[in-house]
Structures are given as structure tokens and as C-alpha cells.
């Protein structure tokens, strides 16, 4: 290839490669750079191209396991899903804020205690608990934008174990756990400003948007109680915690206090708002809070020393921290730029030594509609760009050095990308292996299944210079965000069976207790029989079944379906679940095992006789 065939774009791309190499500790003198560059370009046009641009296979053969657990939110399905990455096989669905008639979540007494009757949920952001900047495999946290809740999933059983409702907040959006030294706090945001409190006592402010507020809420990860809220004039959208345990930070697109589209867009500059944790702790200790709706509320409005407002262009969206902990990248959304904030400067800005805007050290032009940024751990950022419908790989160092277009590669997505995420990218161990582009539209990519089509999760090989799409994967309503966690961090924590003592009412002896109108049936399930062959109750009795699975073999779960009584649940080895209902339909109602268990699974049934 002759030298004169270089064009400027190729030259810039090449610089991108060498820039990344320098970041990895390989420093080359400038004269050698151009030779190196020529070699790279030559190789790209030869048979080596495939290897340079990734070449990873997503195929996981029978008898092999995926190297990553992917934890996907499920949008307005209200659930969280587990996929194997890179095979993208769906391995499990965890009902969180929703009913799931398969597992019985929302039907059993145990799950009703969590849901408290509210089973519409909208999960957006799933994040894992951390120790020293990487996942510890203990918990997942996820928000419910619809009913303003945050749930915790225990990863040993992969099931929801706590849900907290957040008062004084609405449009509960970005949610992030503390990354260092370990997850003690989890923060979550109010995207929709509201009157505070938002109840009858404050009716005078219902239609006075100037008296609406946003909230940055801090949750105690261990107790799932609310530590405090920081009240703001602005709304707060997405959020992230730093790698030092000092700050959380959130983008705000509505400091206008607008309630209409035109109003949200009024200002040319909105904010990245940074929250100072040490000062928050001190303010709580000093009692500088008001108690509203039972929550300690601190004032974080302009003038407060708890918050720092870094101006960023118009209606920013995602805030993501680079794996080295040095930079926060705000994606511009309405602005075509990403604002790179150097976190080390935040201390100085809080101390008043520099102006907040001086924390922004670069503002490269990424494309039209930058939404979210993820990282490959090799000095590059990858930003999803919604209007252009691209994923843009760009080099952070080059941006900080002043390049307006530090692009390495632009990948056309065409299917309206929202979030993107790379493997381990929200940890200090980002490994740059795979990238998932969570696209909102999938038309023509899959067999037509009617007007409501699946979303399209595209798997991208991140190991080469260029981003290479290797797989389309359909997804049902509607993942927003994902984290992909190395298998070795999760697998040792996940259990095969419950401890029988987890449930205080675990059944060790089959018995029927009758007390007035109450009938309590305590029974075992042991393949292929329930502890009783029949149970008689009287019409109108309030009946509670406790069922404990006594099979100790892995994967031997039993179902429990009561014909005509709208009841079904699954109990796994050593697990106990219960259900309470009124026996209002006289007759014979077979209870049967719904979850295949044994050669005599069909025979695993018993009679519930409701006597007149």
C-alpha cells in the first residue's frame, strides 16, 4: 500500500491505535509511530484483519459454560434476567417487582410480604455489590421507576430478598452501589420533581412546579433502610459512585423545574451534581436535617456545601466512571459532546479553590445523541449515540489532550441503541472482551411475531481495534441496562439448595392444625408424594399451606398447584413456601405438582376436599 493513499481519517484512526498502546505502557518514538501505523494499515487490508478485529467466538459448545454472568434489567416487565455471555442464552428470570405465576412470586405469603400488593414495576439499572472496586457476588440492586422502590437480590439464591419504598421521590431512576471500600450505601435518584411531601398535607403545592423538588436518596445496603435524602431544586437522572468512597454524582436535565417539554429544554447548560459523602455524614451527625415522611432530609440546594454543580451542556444523560477511577464521562444527549470530568479536581472545587466548570477537562464531539459510555480497560471509551444510531469507540487520553474527535472506530447500529455495557466495565477490572448494545428496535432482524416485536441486544466483539457485531439476540420487554460479571466472581457464591432453617416455619412433621375458622396444613414434598394424600376443610375456612421440599437432590424442585384456586408456586430443595386462601368453592380440588420431579411426577397429587 503506497503512502499517498492515506487519507486523514485513516491517519487519525491509526493514532488511536498507537494512543491505546501507549496507555498500556508501550511508548514508541514518533518516527517509529508512523512506520507502525503503516504496518497496522497494511495488516488491516490483509488476512490478519479478522484477528485484529476481534475474532472471538460466542459459541459455547455442549458441556461448556459461559465465562460471564450477564444480569439484565427487564424494564416494565419488572424482573431481572440472567444470561450467559457470550452465548446470550437466557438462564434465569428473577421476578422482582412483578408477579410470576410460574415460581409463585406474588402468590406465596413470603413474596406478598415483599410486594405488599404492588406488582407493577419498571426495572432499569442492575448493579452488583462491591468490595474494593470489583464485584463481591453478594447482592444485586435494582430500581423500580414506576412505583419508586429499590430491591435487593441475594446472589446465593438469585432471588429478591428485600424491597424498600422510597418516599418523597418519583421516577426513581439511576441507582448505584458504593464501590469502595465496600458497598455500605446505595444511591438512587428522583427523575421527576414533585412536591415534598407528596401527600394531602402539601396539597397547596400540587400545581406549583416552583415548589417541586428532586431527591438523591441514600440506602443502607445491609438493612435496606433509608439513610437520608438530599433535597434539590433540580431533578436527578442517572448516577454513579466513584472508586474512592467519597462521592456519588448524578446528571440533571431539568434544573429549569419544567413540567413541559419546552421547559425541560430551556437552559443550554444543565449539571452534573456531585454529592460529598463525608459532609453528608457530618450533617446527619450534626442533626442538620428535617424529617419528612419519616425520612431525614438534608438540604442540597444551591448554596449547600453538600453538593457541587458542574455545568455540562444541555440535557445530559449517562454518567459513567472510567475503570481507573480518574474520569467521569457525562454523555450529552441533546449536545453531541461527552463531558470528561477529572475526579481529582472535585476536591479542589468543593474547597472553592477552582470553579466547578474547571473539573471538565475534555469535551469531545462524539456524535448526535450520546447516551451512555462504557470502557474497555485499555484507555478507550465506547459511547452509545442514539440519533446517529452508532456505537463510538474513542480514546480518553486523546480527548483530554484536546482532540475534538478522538474517534477510534464508529460502528453503525441502525437499531436505536440505548444503553451499552462492556464486560466488567463498571469495575476496576474492566477487561474489554465483549460489548452489548441494548437496542430498542429490532425490525427485520427476527421472524415477525406481530406488532409488538422483541428488543435487539447486539453482542459486539470488543477485543480488536474495530467493534464487530457478532450476534443479534431478541429480548422481551424491555431491558435497559446490564452488567456482565466474570464467572469466577459469582459462581462460588451461588448455592444449589436452601438451608431448611432459612424459613422459620419449615415443616419437619406433617400436621394439620385447626383453630376456629383457620386450617393450617403443614406438609412435606418428597418425590413423588406430598405429605398428605388428602386434606379436608369446610367451606369458608381460611386455609394456609406450608410446603417444605425435603428432596436433597440438586434441581429437584416441586410445584404446588391447587385446581380452581388460582394458586401455583414452586419449592426447591429444602425450601419452604406458604399460601393462604379462603376455601370458598366446595368440591374436590386436586393439588398437583407442576414442576417435573420424578418418574411418577403425574402421580404426585392429592385431594383438597372442601366440604359444604
Amino acid at each position, binding site marked *: 500500500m503506497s503512502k499517498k493513499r492515506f487519507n486523514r481519517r485513516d491517519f487519525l484512526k491509526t493514532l488511536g491505535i498507537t494512543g491505546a498502546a501507549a496507555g498500556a505502557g508501550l511508548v514508541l518514538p514518533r518516527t517509529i509511530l508512523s512506520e507502525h501505523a503503516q504496518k497496522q494499515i497494511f495488516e488491516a487490508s490483509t488476512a490478519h484483519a479478522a484477528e485484529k478485529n476481534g475474532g472471538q467466538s460466542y459459541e459455547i459448545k455442549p458441556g461448556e459454560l459461559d465465562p460471564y454472568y450477564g444480569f439484565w434489567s427487564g424494564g416494565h416487565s419488572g424482573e431481572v434476567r440472567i444470561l450467559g455471555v457470550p452465548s446470550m442464552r437466557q438462564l434465569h428470570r428473577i421476578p422482582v417487582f412483578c408477579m410470576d405465576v410460574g415460581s409463585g412470586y406474588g402468590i406465596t405469603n413470603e413474596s406478598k410480604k415483599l410486594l405488599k400488593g404492588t406488582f407493577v414495576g419498571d426495572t432499569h439499572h442492575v448493579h452488583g455489590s462491591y468490595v474494593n472496586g470489583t464485584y463481591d457476588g453478594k447482592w444485586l440492586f435494582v430500581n423500580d421507576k414506576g412505583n419508586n422502590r429499590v430491591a435487593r437480590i441475594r446472589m446465593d439464591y438469585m432471588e429478591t430478598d428485600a424491597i424498600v419504598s422510597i418516599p418523597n421521590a418519583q421516577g426513581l431512576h439511576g441507582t448505584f452501589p458504593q464501590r469502595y471500600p465496600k458497598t455500605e450505601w446505595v444511591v438512587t435518584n428522583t427523575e421527576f420533581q414533585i412536591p415534598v411531601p407528596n401527600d394531602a398535607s402539601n396539597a397547596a403545592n400540587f400545581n406549583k412546579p416552583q415548589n417541586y423538588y428532586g431527591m438523591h436518596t441514600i440506602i443502607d445496603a445491609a438493612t435496606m433502610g433509608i439513610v437520608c435524602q438530599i433535597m434539590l431544586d433540580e431533578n436527578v437522572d442517572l448516577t454513579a459512585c466513584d472508586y474512592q468512597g467519597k462521592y456519588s454524582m448524578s446528571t440533571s436535565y431539568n434544573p429549569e423545574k419544567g413540567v413541559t417539554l419546552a421547559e425541560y429544554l430551556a437552559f443550554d447548560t444543565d449539571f452534573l451534581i456531585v454529592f460529598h459523602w463525608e459532609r453528608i455524614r457530618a450533617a446527619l451527625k450534626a442533626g442538620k436535617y428535617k424529617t419528612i415522611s419519616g425520612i431525614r432530609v438534608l438540604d442540597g440546594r444551591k448554596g449547600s456545601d453538600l453538593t457541587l454543580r458542574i455545568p455540562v451542556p444541555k440535557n445530559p444523560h449517562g454518567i459513567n466512571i472510567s475503570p481507573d477511577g480518574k474520569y467521569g464521562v457525562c454523555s450529552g444527549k441533546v449536545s453531541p459532546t461527552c463531558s470528561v470530568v477529572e475526579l481529582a479536581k472535585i476536591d479542589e472545587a468543593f474547597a472553592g479553590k477552582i470553579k466547578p466548570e474547571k473539573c471538565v477537562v475534555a469535551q469531545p464531539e462524539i456524535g448526535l445523541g450520546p447516551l451512555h459510555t462504557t470502557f474497555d480497560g485499555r484507555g478507550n471509551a465506547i459511547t452509545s449515540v442514539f440519533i446517529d444510531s452508532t456505537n463510538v469507540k474513542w480514546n480518553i487520553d486523546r480527548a483530554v489532550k484536546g482532540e475534538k474527535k478522538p474517534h477510534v472506530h464508529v460502528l453503525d447500529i441502525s437499531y436505536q441503541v440505548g444503553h451499552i455495557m462492556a464486560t466488567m466495565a463498571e469495575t476496576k477490572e474492566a477487561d474489554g472482551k465483549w460489548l452489548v448494545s441494548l437496542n430498542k428496535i429490532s425490525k427485520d432482524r427476527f421472524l415477525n411475531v406481530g406488532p409488538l416485536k422483541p428488543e435487539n441486544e447486539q453482542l459486539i466483539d470488543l477485543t480488536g481495534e474495530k467493534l464487530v457485531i457478532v450476534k443479534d439476540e431478541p429480548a422481551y420487554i424491555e431491558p435497559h441496562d446490564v452488567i456482565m460479571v466474570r464467572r*469466577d466472581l459469582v459462581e462460588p457464591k451461588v448455592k444449589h439448595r436452601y438451608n431448611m432453617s432459612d424459613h422459620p416455619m419449615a415443616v419437619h412433621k406433617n400436621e394439620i392444625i385447626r383453630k376456629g375458622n383457620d386450617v393450617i396444613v403443614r406438609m*412435606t414434598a418428597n418425590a413423588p*408424594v406430598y405429605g398428605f394424600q388428602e386434606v379436608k376443610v369446610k367451606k369458608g375456612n381460611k386455609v394456609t399451606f406450608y410446603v417444605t421440599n425435603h428432596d436433597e437432590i440438586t434441581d429437584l424442585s416441586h410445584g404446588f398447584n391447587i385446581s380452581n384456586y388460582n394458586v401455583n408456586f414452586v419449592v426447591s430443595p429444602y425450601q419452604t413456601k406458604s399460601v393462604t386462601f379462603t376455601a370458598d368453592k366446595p368440591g374436590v380440588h386436586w393439588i398437583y405438582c407442576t414442576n417435573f420431579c420424578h*418418574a411418577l411426577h403425574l402421580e404426585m397429587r392429592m385431594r383438597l376436599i372442601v366440604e359444604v
Partner: protein
Amino acid sequence: MTGLFSVVVSLVLVLVFSYDVRAEGSFLEHRYPYTPNEALPGADRFVKKQGYWEGYKGNKMVGVVLLSKDWTPNLVGYAGKHLETLIGMDTAGNLTGVKVVFHAEPIVMIGLKEDNYKTFIRQYVGKSIKEKLAVGSGISMDAITGATVTAVVQNSIVLGSARRAALKSGMLQARKTEAPRQVSQAFTAQSWKELLDKGAVQRITIKPETVGLKAEAQPYLDLYFALADPPAVGRNLLGANAYEQAKAALGKRGGSILVVVSSGPGSFKGTGFVRGGIFDRFHLEQEAKSFIFRDVDYTLISEIKAAGAPPIREGGIFLIHNKDFDPGDRFAFNLVLPVRVGTTSKEVKSFEQTYRLPDAYMEKAK
């Protein structure tokens, strides 16, 4: 006789689990009454000892009778329950009577009769516990074809219980063991070839014709196994992560780590563990003790990390929690494979390879 029977009953009661999983399931559970002299017909008087009865004819001790549940309670069958067995043997170690007194195996449900099970059990009578006896080698599965989990567990229960009781009662002399050794924590990087050459990894190769298939150059099963307790074995075979995870999974209780991998169309894992939770194609024997592996002790692996290792088709890490296992002592790896006979019938064949962690990975026990 009445007094004797009450002794039996009280013994059984003591052993009942602390919780009562009551049996509406009794339909599937088979419990039979018994007296010790059913297993040692030559005796006319029994004296209760710790865990067994001594049987006397006149003043002469003629043998012992025991209940397996006192000796191998952790060995459970397909149904997750111990196969309680009454076992009698003479003073020379010849089995004089074996009777299953409780089981919940669903073999009746898969086309076998309770009588088939009794036929299987009966073949132990007259055999010596000093002999090598394995399903497929000395013990035939003809009577209960298909119920391999039950057969393998039952075999371990009979032999394991009898041998342990014989050692305890002094009827059997323990093999003279060498000076106790313990695992060395020293680590050096070692290739696959070094691990093989030093004997840390042992191999069983089975040709297709051995299992009734057409002869071919490629082995039907090329199996390697190793005790991965020493870091110089485990870390090299599994990589640091998987090795540390296995150690962590053993927890404070400790235990040992067995690694088994294979290539070829044959399978050492089989499918017994999928439904029954038990690996019915391989187990370890050490002295009088059998070690059977369950699904909860198993982690799939799909590659060996040691440099130069061949690709594998199947592989697993198997944890040995049982404190009776001594990683410093020799043991036998027993493989039981189904063998095709003609076109429609099957039998099983067993293979064995002894293993002893080489001294290079060990040190004298303190």
C-alpha cells in the same frame, strides 16, 4: 427372643433423623422386620457390642452381625435415603447373610420387582470381604439391570460396612500403612507432561472393543484423574482461580479435591447424577471405605490449564468432604461402564487404577 427384638428396635429408633419426614410416602418405602440370626444362621446367641452383635454357637464366637446404618449412613441411594442393610459374616470374613431391611428405591417403578432386588443382594452370601468386589467384577447387575445407582451404592454399603466392622472387631487386620504423609503446600509450575511423568495424574484408557464396540484406533474413553490437593497439582491443572475456589468450597471442614477429565465418546459421568444426584460410574475405595460422589460435590470444568494438556470432552472437580479419606494414602479409582452385549442386552464392566500422590508433592505428617 423378645428381649433381643427390643434391642433391635431401640437401635433403629436412635438412628432416626432428628426430623420426621412422615411417610405418606410409605407406599414407596419398604421396611422389613429382621432378627440378627437371619444374617448369621450358625449362631444361637448374640451379644450386643458397640455397633454390632457378636454371634456365638455355644461358647464359640462364629461371626458378627451389623446394621449398615451404623457404619455407612452417608451412603444414600437414588431416593436420597440410606439402604439399611443387615449384614452377617463369619470370623474369616465370609458373608453369611445380607438382607435389606429398609429402602425407598423406586426400582419397582421402573419395571423391576422387589424380588429382583433380593436376588441381587443374595449374591453377596458366601463372598469374602477380603476379595475385590465391585459391580461388574464379582458382583453382577443381571438381576437389576438399569438400576446402576442402587447397585453401586448397595455394593459400597455392604462391603464398606462389613469391612469397617471387621476392622473394629479385630476380625480383619488393617493393612500396614506407611508413615502418615501430608500434602506439601509448595508450588512450582508444572506442565501436563511433568504431572503425568511424576505420577500425579493417572490414566485409564479403554478401547472400543473392550466395551463391545467395533475396534478402532481411537480409545472409547481416555480418562485422567488426579488428587488435586497439593497446589503443585491442583493449581497447575485447574488454574489459580478454580483451585482456590475448590479449596474455599471445602471450607473449614477441609477435605480433598479429585479432578477427573476424559476424551473419547465414552462418558465417566454418565447420567445417573442428573436425576438421582449420584455419579454411578466411578467411585474411590480406600481401605475399607468407599467414596461416592454426589451432584452437590461436583463442578464442571471444560479444560485443563496445565501447559500441553490435551483438549477434553468431559471434566469435573469432585470434592471429598468425608474426613475418613486420607490424601496421603493410596486409593483405587473404580470405573463402572455399561458394556454392550450383542444388540439388545447390556452388562457392566469395572476397571480400576490405583493412585498414590507421589512423594514429590507430600511431606511427612507432623
